[in-house]
């Protein structure tokens, strides 16, 4: 071991444990020492049999106008159909896809679409037999059954400095909405009382 710290001289730090010690103490130590035993070496490896039996896959039918990145030459042959564009959020998202993936506008519009999507679905849920329920859908009751206090109290956890924001993110808009409705109702009733 050099007397001055390692980076100031050429020698590497002496190993703490020899290869023999490590092999004896740690199951599998060094089994993939040879890079050729590592499956992703080299990174690009042509010729692997993937199981495909096509040069270009058959095309999945496009049953509705499927949005796509402008960086694609055409609609790829296979795609997900879980949640087609719809409503106001659909309009925003469709507009976002006019921009390339390198543009901030593309991603920020998609984020805006996500927020609008969540809000319109929450509002629409009130016209159904199963309105959104922030208690059951957040799973917050598990705080009581899964040691919410002891998991945090007395623990050195870095996330305690921001977890207080989560209830505001979830409950804040609901509180604002209730406040807005209450205020509007009160104003309406006052106006009727005056007239």
């Amino acid at each position, binding site marked *: 071991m050099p007397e001055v*710290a*390692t*980076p100031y001289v050429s020698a590497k*730090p002496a*190993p*703490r444990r020899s*290869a023999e010690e*490590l092999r004896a*103490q740690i*199951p*599998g130590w060094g089994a*993939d020492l040879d*890079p050729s035993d*590592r*499956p*992703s070496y080299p*990174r*690009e*490896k*042509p010729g*692997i049999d*993937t*199981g*495909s039996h096509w040069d*270009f896959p*058959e095309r*999945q039918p496009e049953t509705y106008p*499927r*949005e796509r*990145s402008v960086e*694609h030459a055409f609609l790829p042959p*296979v*795609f*997900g*159909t*879980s*949640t087609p564009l719809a409503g106001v959020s659909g309009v925003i998202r469709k507009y*976002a896809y006019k921009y390339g*993936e390198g543009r901030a506008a593309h*991603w*920020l519009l998609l*984020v805006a679409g*996500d927020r609008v999507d*969540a809000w319109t*679905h929450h509002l629409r849920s009130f016209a159904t037999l199963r309105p959104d329920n922030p208690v*059951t*859908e*957040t*799973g917050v009751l598990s705080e009581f059954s*899964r*040691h919410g206090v002891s*998991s945090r109290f007395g623990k050195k*956890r*870095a*996330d305690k*400095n*921001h*977890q207080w924001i989560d209830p505001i*993110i*979830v409950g804040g808009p609901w509180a604002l909405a209730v406040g807005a409705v209450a205020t509007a109702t009160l104003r309406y009733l006052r106006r009727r009382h005056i007239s």
Partner: protein
Amino acid sequence: MVYRGPYKVRVEEKDIPKIEHPNDAIVRVSKGAICGSDLHLYHGMMPDTRVGMTFGHEFVGSVHEVGSSVQNLTVGDRVMVPFNVYCGSCYFCSRGLYSNCHNVNPNATAVGGIYGYSHTCGGYDGGQAEFVRVPFADVGPFRIPEWMDEEDAVLLTDALPTGYFGAQLGDIVEGDTVVVFGAGPVGLFAAKSAWIMGAGRVIVIDHLEYRLEKARSFAHAETYNFVEYEDIVVQLKKATDYLGADVVIDAVGAEADGNFLQHLTSAKLKLQGGSPVALNWAIDSVRKGGTVSVVGAYGPIFSAVKFGDAMNKGLTLRMNQCPVKRQWPRLFEHIRNGYLKPSDLVTHRIPLEHIAEGYHIFSAKLDNIIKPLVVAGPL
């Protein structure tokens, strides 16, 4: 399950998915998992995450139906499904880059297809469900070997291969000092894999003491809780005789803690693609000329990464989503040889109908949770 907006999910009845392409299969899910990266969706961080989508990219099950061109699977086969949706034949797949497939994601060219991971990753429903559509059934899914435990198989669909891949990206040579940021399942598997590649020292950093304990017992690692140090980078320099680590692996990704402003602007305000705290610590704690491997997931929006330090230090930055199936043959050997036991990290088995509680427990890190499985049928 379906997503109902940030921090909200619930169980709903959906139609059984249909064959939409001749090489599709429909898989009846028996076991799935919640991944740390699912939390980015759950928290509303990934652009184009639509209400009504079903999450879940780690799952195993049995084949329920196959399309007309499927040759390698039959109804009833028990299969494990890699999280990558990929064609096996495009420019990228034919070179082994399955996670970068160009034929499966209309919404973005920068990322391949991933089950249940927003429209930015292709718009596919995922496996936190009873049934899931699996495209390119002749390419991705694989019959679960008779000798393999089903819970091990679930962890082989993402967490273990990703950790193992992260260690490979580090180009570890014998005796290297390897630092892993993040003691979640991927970080723990990366630490374990670093030994398999011949590391001389493995150091794991996190802020959750119960996970650091697991890093010591499961991954034989030295550990540091970054909350206990004013500057974890300086501490790592001291621990490596002021040289820095040869290889640093970022197994944290977009919701890294340790800097309130970074976390606020990314995880809460969604103004960054991710909180790059762990990545910046990785850049600063690796030695000059060293390698930073990134397997933590980040969103596509810009992040405040300290790129100048990376340039000035002459670092090699290596990263990708893991091409899962490429890892399987070697990982199967390591499991059979007893070097790896993936299901050792499973701490919770959550019935599908209680998925909302599962997400909250995992998100809030309650109950010493490390890896939650989701069970579609009876426990």
